[in-house]
């Protein structure tokens, strides 16, 4: 398996200004992404889940270098792109794209679909005007729209169709790697399946690699080969999607899974629910030690004092939780 992207101890902190009670403005830091490490392999889909505000979007945007990282490294196809300026990033932009949640907001309302898609080909100087036109039609066909749609404007489309336009635009530059940030969250269930199956199909045909961000665990599980779970800016567990469902290790993952209602009345009514109390604490002053300790049913003094490290507990299954410290030690001794 080739690694297409490697993220090492990545941090993105936002400075927050706050009116102090006595001494004017105070400066806090909000640790939106804190010390996150993982690899993405060529041709796979890595899913990213977690409650809103846990840093999924920030992580995606930092990887795309839409934000400057506060610390850590981003290695794309073997090249360290962490410190590159926008001009130096230029050759990489072609290979990395992002699809957003709200297809409407990300499409220029005054441009036709054809113009929107062509805009992504601007840097491809090798293409002639007629080749561009032809490519637009090919792309529309690829995403399940037709040539009639090329001359229409975004407002003339339904939500699902707009997302298809967004995907066609992303594909226009022949990217290798696409960050999909909640691409289906705004769509109806029946349409979600259309878009997800389209993404899967395109991946097979074009060999794409996805970072698929969503808060819908069942959808992420469905589309992803591996899934990472985030909590308050940190990655707390990472495993193959099957393994994560069968044997989740982190108490947060277990709780998250148990909270997802399945469309089966008998199963739902027999289910032993683990309801996590309370809500996600503020990322400005996160709890010391393990950030989940305030809501964790199994937290100990150690969890309140020391942050657990993100370690491979069984092959390809990573977790940041003190419950597995023993297993981690054995690993090291072997």
């Amino acid at each position, binding site marked *: 398996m080739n690694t297409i992207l490697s993220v090492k101890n990545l941090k993105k902190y936002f400075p927050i200004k706050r009116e102090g009670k006595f001494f004017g403005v105070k400066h806090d830091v909000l640790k939106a992404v804190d010390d996150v490490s993982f690899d993405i392999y060529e041709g796979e889909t890595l899913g990213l889940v977690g409650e809103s505000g846990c840093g999924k979007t920030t992580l995606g945007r930092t990887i795309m270098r839409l934000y400057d990282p506060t610390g850590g490294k981003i290695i794309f196809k073997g090249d360290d792109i962490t410190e590159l300026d926008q001009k130096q990033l230029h050759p990489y932009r072609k290979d990395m794209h992002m699809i957003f949640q709200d297809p409407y907001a990300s499409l220029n309302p005054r441009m036709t679909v054809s113009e929107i898609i062509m805009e992504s080909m601007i840097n491809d100087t090798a293409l002639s005007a007629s080749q561009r036109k032809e490519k637009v039609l090919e792309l529309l066909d690829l995403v399940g729209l037709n040539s009639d749609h090329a001359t229409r404007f975004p407002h003339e489309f339904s939500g699902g169709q707009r997302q298809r336009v967004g995907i066609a635009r992303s594909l226009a530059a022949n990217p290798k790697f696409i960050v999909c940030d909640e691409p289906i969250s705004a769509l*109806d269930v*029946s349409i979600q399946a259309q878009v997800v199956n389209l993404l899967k199909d395109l991946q097979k045909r074009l060999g794409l690699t996805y970072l698929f961000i969503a808060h819908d665990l069942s959808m992420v599980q469905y589309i992803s080969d591996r899934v990472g779970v985030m909590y308050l800016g940190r990655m707390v567990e990472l495993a193959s999607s099957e393994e994560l469902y069968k044997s989740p290790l982190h108490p947060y993952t277990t709780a998250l899974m148990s909270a997802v209602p399945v469309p089966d009345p008998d199963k739902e009514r027999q289910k032993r629910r683990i309801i996590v109390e309370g809500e996600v604490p503020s990322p400005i002053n996160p709890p010391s030690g393990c950030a989940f300790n305030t809501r964790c049913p199994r937290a100990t003094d150690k969890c309140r004092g020391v942050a657990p490290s993100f370690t491979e507990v069984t092959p390809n299954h990573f977790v940041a939780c003190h419950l597995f410290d023993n297993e981690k030690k054995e690993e090291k001794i072997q």
Partner: protein
Amino acid sequence: MNNILEVKELSTSFFTKFGEIKAVDKISFTLEEGEVIAIVGESGSGKSVASMSIMGLVDTGGKIVNGQILFNGKDVVGLKEKEMEKIRGSEISMIFQDPMTCLNPVFTIGSQMEESLKLHFKEMTKAQRHEKIINMLDMVGIANPEQRAKQYPHELSGGMRQRVMIAMSLLCNPKLLIADEPTTALDVTIQAQIIDLMRNIKEEFNTAIILITHDLGVVASIADKVMVMYCGEVVESAEVRKLYYESKHPYTWGLLKALPRLDMKDNELQPIPGSTPDLLLEHEGCNFFERCEYAMECCRKAKPPVFEAGEAHKVKCWRYHPDFKEDI
């Protein structure tokens, strides 16, 4: 058991400059005390308009054009606004996806709750009101209710505001609670807390609940019966187990097959092709015709009536006509 609500052939339309939009088209159902009915369907299918019609709060431009809404045996359609106001907030109350639709940002939680009590229980003393407010906040799982009552809505998190809104809606012991997508904007862990709370409310107060959602997982976890809406019509209705295990309408099948499931690996998602038709265009046949893989010639020509597909199981689809044979 007592039927608390009987809706008979209710139709609500909007009259726009482009024509009539039949947002709710002849829907009928009954609801008993302590029963939870879920209304599911894609956006635009008429779920909210149906519930607003029951509340007597249809947007301007819209009107109930047909049918009856019997609440405790009494028709509330066409009731004077004064009388409806009395029923709203005491006997029927409603919660929304966005709690800020019913919370006033400039008043504290406590004072808003107190206003509502003053309006509906004139004989209550200040001390009694206070006690009731604190009890209710406690009941919906708000820690430090005394302190929270003094706070403003913006000082609370989304999940907490949802709880406050639920507390407010329960203040006057309503017989019927209408919840329009109450968990759609919440994270799953908070959603699980709120569903748990709704389950307790149903059990503790015997409140009947109309739960509007597009999430078939949520429905499975709490509903007693289910109505599936499409383009303003109820295309299938049944007791919850029947709806999931013996569903009859191709649209219901479509919804269930389009869902990814955490409890089943490798179920291929089968999207429903196309999208919902424009309600402004009058269709001769079944509204689902264009997206239906089982459509027949008759489906294009005529609207299917309601067929009985079993006990308390109704379906609007020509496949259930007594003369229908599978292989024509």
